[in-house]
């Protein structure tokens, strides 16, 4: 009995929090765009450092950490209802939810590539960073082509 009550309570709480979450898709969209901006900035941070005569490994590490952090949050920022139907301006395509397994896989590719970049940055070897970079960049386009509307 007690267990049942707990389960019902948990379910209610879960539904309630989901409702709160779904109530403000505009906020979710704003937060996810801010997160993508963090990813973009970190990506550029690594790229700009890589082409300097003497790359600053500390800067690369900081960017790689921010990038890995942002990447791990991506798939969670796409609850149902936060697509074009939300009314707020978004480039998220309905395909994200129509082909959700593919989308999740694309997001996981980013997470994996960003973790590799984090490891590379921590190796303190700029050549390892450079080797990890193309695969990381590829995950951006790989996902955008299918799931992001063009401007």
């Amino acid at each position: 009995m007690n267990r049942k009550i707990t389960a019902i309570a948990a379910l209610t709480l879960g539904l309630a929090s989901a409702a709160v979450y779904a109530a403000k898709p505009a906020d979710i969209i704003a937060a996810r765009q801010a997160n993508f901006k963090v990813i973009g900035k970190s990506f550029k941070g690594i790229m700009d450092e890589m082409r300097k005569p003497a790359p600053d490994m500390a800067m690369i590490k900081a960017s790689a950490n921010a990038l890995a952090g942002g990447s791990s949050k991506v798939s969670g920022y796409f609850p149902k209802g936060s697509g074009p139907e939300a009314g707020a301006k978004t480039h998220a395509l309905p395909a994200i939810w129509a082909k959700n397994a593919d989308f999740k896989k694309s997001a996981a590719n980013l997470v994996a590539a960003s973790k590799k970049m984090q490891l590379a940055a921590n190796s303190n070897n700029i050549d390892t960073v450079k080797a990890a970079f193309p695969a990381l960049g590829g995950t951006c386009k790989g996902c955008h082509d299918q799931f992001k509307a063009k401007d």
Partner: protein
Amino acid sequence: MASDSRRAKLWDLPVRLIHWSFVVLLPLLWWTAENGEMDLHMTLGLVMLGLVVFRVLWGLVGSSTARFASFVRGPITVISYLRGLSKSESETSAGHNPAGGWSVVLLLGLLAVDVGLGLIAQNVDGVTGSLNYLVSYDQAEQATELHELGFNILLAVIVLHIAAILFYTFVKKDRLVPPMITGSKDLPTAVTTPVMAPAWRILPCLLIAAALTWWVSIGAPTSLEQFNAPPPVDASEYM
């Protein structure tokens, strides 16, 4: 017209080649941007940079009809020219008229600005212009938006340019397109014959334009240390 006019060289080869290159390049630049062919877009953008630089140099040392000094006129001249447009007077000088001269300056200026913005722009896939590393992420985002806006402004001016050509062709009975292809035009005898620049001048202008474009394409290094630094990330590696 046969008795009081003669055939004369109006536009030299560089002017014509550059003009028609713009006509070919702009749609290609638009298409590559729309279809995500960013590698090609950037290469073509650099070609555009080289052409604009060459045209500016040619505007200083080229043939008389190519020179800014010969066709950039003061506002009073432009206004009185525009007022007299309705009259059917024959042309008094060869080359760009006072209004058209400013259209050249405007079009070239817009091209230059938009190429400049493109050099620091970035897209969502992390593809960047060769000078993007010199600016911050936010600056590059702004530049990217302005790059698109600049193209739209350019389009508007091109529409005006084409409208003017149609006006001259059908209302003023002055066909501007054939001379831009053949280079020659029947000019009234009263009009001074344009002075064509010697062909050798093309070479230094071409060399300077090519060198500058190459320097920009490798990220505009300002020291030997930077020059020897690793090349920019080739976007094609992950495209």
